[in-house]
């Protein structure tokens, strides 16, 4: 199987579907002439022309709203958020329109929209440019929210997203754009709502999504040396939320550590812990541990930023705690 970067796999999915389906159009800031600030859309303007690769002014609310209108008439727009940090300016459109129009129209319209872009931190972008918004948007029924962690998944999930008749928020891990992995050529899809067992294990379930999954795999290797056999669960999709997949793992391991870059309060990890104690209460041998971002806006300085995000040590310490070691 060919190996591709996360970036190229993402581009391949969009380009392939644009070849197949005239109704797919791209909108966003500097996605055309500039080539995309993260080069995700590089070359697509030349291939598909300005009617389908639409450079927009800096008006997130406006072009997301316009894309919703396009989707209501049967186009399949893919909107690039240059980064998800700018999506707060489009929150009204995403939450009040995209998520709800189907419902308050009594099912008369659908909104086959994809909004995608990088999120998460790690490169010193500081407070306004560092957010992990899976839980923030995942709260709203009517939206689907996914967070692929591998080149394989990003292609398969993007194809699923474009073909999904519902609005999909596609939160990419910007830090992973350059990472490589095996990616089949041609058409394949990865369904939403099913976790991925990234590593099988019996002693503890390490649960996360996006870029932390790689960190968990690395921690799992280290733990193996201590004789701890960790299972790594990649949530993949935040809404729909695969409680079953999580519970299946915990019923096997009886212990769980949930890791996320986002803040702890009212977050994805809160839900994972809540669901586990709800549905696997008697199987739990220890409280579910959470390792989250520090409860501060993201700092700029390298050392502070490092301290603000989950570290491998924090994770392995949490693992030892749930194993009472």
């Amino acid at each position, binding site marked *: 199987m060919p190996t591709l970067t996360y970036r190229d796999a993402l581009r391949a999915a969009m380009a392939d579907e644009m070849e197949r389906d005239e109704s797919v159009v791209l909108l966003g800031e500097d996605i055309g002439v500039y080539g995309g600030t993260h080069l995700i859309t590089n070359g697509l303007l030349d291939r598909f022309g300005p009617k389908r690769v639409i450079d927009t*002014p800096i008006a997130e609310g406006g072009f997301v*709203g316009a894309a919703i*209108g396009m989707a*209501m*008439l049967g186009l399949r727009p893919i909107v690039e958020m240059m980064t998800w940090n700018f999506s707060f300016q489009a929150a009204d459109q995403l939450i009040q*329109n995209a998520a709800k129009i189907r419902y308050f*129209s009594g099912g008369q319209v659908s909104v086959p929209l994809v909004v995608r872009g990088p999120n998460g931190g790690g490169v010193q972008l500081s407070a306004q440019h560092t957010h992990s918004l899976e839980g923030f948007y995942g709260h709203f029924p009517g939206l689907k929210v996914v967070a692929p962690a591998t080149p394989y998944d990003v292609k398969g999930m993007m194809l699923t997203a474009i073909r999904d*008749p*519902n609005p999909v928020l596609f939160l990419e891990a910007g830090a992973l754009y350059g990472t490589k992995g095996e990616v089949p050529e041609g058409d394949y899809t990865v369904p939403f709502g099913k976790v991925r067992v990234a590593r099988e294990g019996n002693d503890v379930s390490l649960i996360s999504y996006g870029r932390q999954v790689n960190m968990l795999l690395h921690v799992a290797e280290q733990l193996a040396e201590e004789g701890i056999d960790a299972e790594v669960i990649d949530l993949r999709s935040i809404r729909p939320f695969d409680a079953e997949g999580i519970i299946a793992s915990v019923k096997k391991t009886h212990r769980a550590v949930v890791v996320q870059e986002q803040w702890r309060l009212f977050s994805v990890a809160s839900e994972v812990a809540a669901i586990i104690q709800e549905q696997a209460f008697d199987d739990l041998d220890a409280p579910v541990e959470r390792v989250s971002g520090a409860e501060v806006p993201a700092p700029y300085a390298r050392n502070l930023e490092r301290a603000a995000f989950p570290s491998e040590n924090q994770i392995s310490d949490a693992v030892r705690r749930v194993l009472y070691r």
Partner: protein
Amino acid sequence: MAVTTASKTTRSRPSPKSRGTKDEPTLSTKHLLELYRKMVTIRIFEEACQRAFREGKIGGYLHLYIGQEAVATGFLDYYRPGDRIITAYRDHAHALLLGADPKAVMAELFGKGTGLVKGKGGSMHLFSVDQGLMGGYGIVGGHIALGVGMAYAQAYQGQPNIVQLYFGDGAIHNGGFHEATNLSGLWGKEKLNPCLFILENNHYGMGTSVERATAMTDLGAKFDSYGIEHEKVDGMDIEAVIACAKRATERVRKSGAPYAIEVNTYRTVPHGAADFIERYRTKEEVQQWRKRDPIGLLEQKLLDHDRADEEQLAKIRDEAKAIVDEAVQFAEESPEPSLDELTTDVYVD
């Protein structure tokens, strides 16, 4: 608030001195009577809503179109199959004019399963997609970008259609207006935005007058910032609206580019059916505008120029009343939505 019943309507006809109807009507009698029937139906429908709201049969927010009937009636006279209509929450008239069954509209307001959107949306969210109504929306400024996107899609798909995008004077100060109209102007340069902006300037956003919302009160001129040409029209004179609508819709259809109309109109009822105190405007001001009530003016014109007699008009009003009464009865008798409906239409599966 004094409810203008259909019969009272005639009394709100302007006194000779304030008459704006000297010149011959330009439209055929048939056409004028048809427009009269539409406006009266809307008026009576809205008055029935008002009563039902008072009786607690309609819940939530209820925004009536009383005083503004000539606007949608005129512009939608140039609706062509395939055109898309989008507006805010003051949307009953648009649905009725596009041919939605008054029974289904009233049932929606009553929150019944037979409602236009199954009782899920209520007054602010009327949709009749097959008839071109892409929705009523409740967030000020929020629907404007949707209309601009629809216009892009129509052009992209090569349809000969346009979007009629209605919004209020209060929405023009919202960032949603600015971002969306700028996109429309930009896309219009490539003939990718056949969008007719219809700014219903009824002089107030809830209780805030235009003068208290912006230092630059020529609202139509705000379209200059986006390279979108515009004109103004008297929204109380149905013939003026019709003439404007004809030109404007043809222009947008031909050019594929946006165009904007600032309609000078007035709501002669409170902002919402629940409001009663109106400290923000005087009774006199409302009275003055009632003299230019669009239905009253048309009646005057029809009578002055012997295009119709009292009897004909009364008959039309009675027919309209019958339709509305039937709609109310249907709404009353309709069942609530089945509880299964709670969880449907969240996603397309």
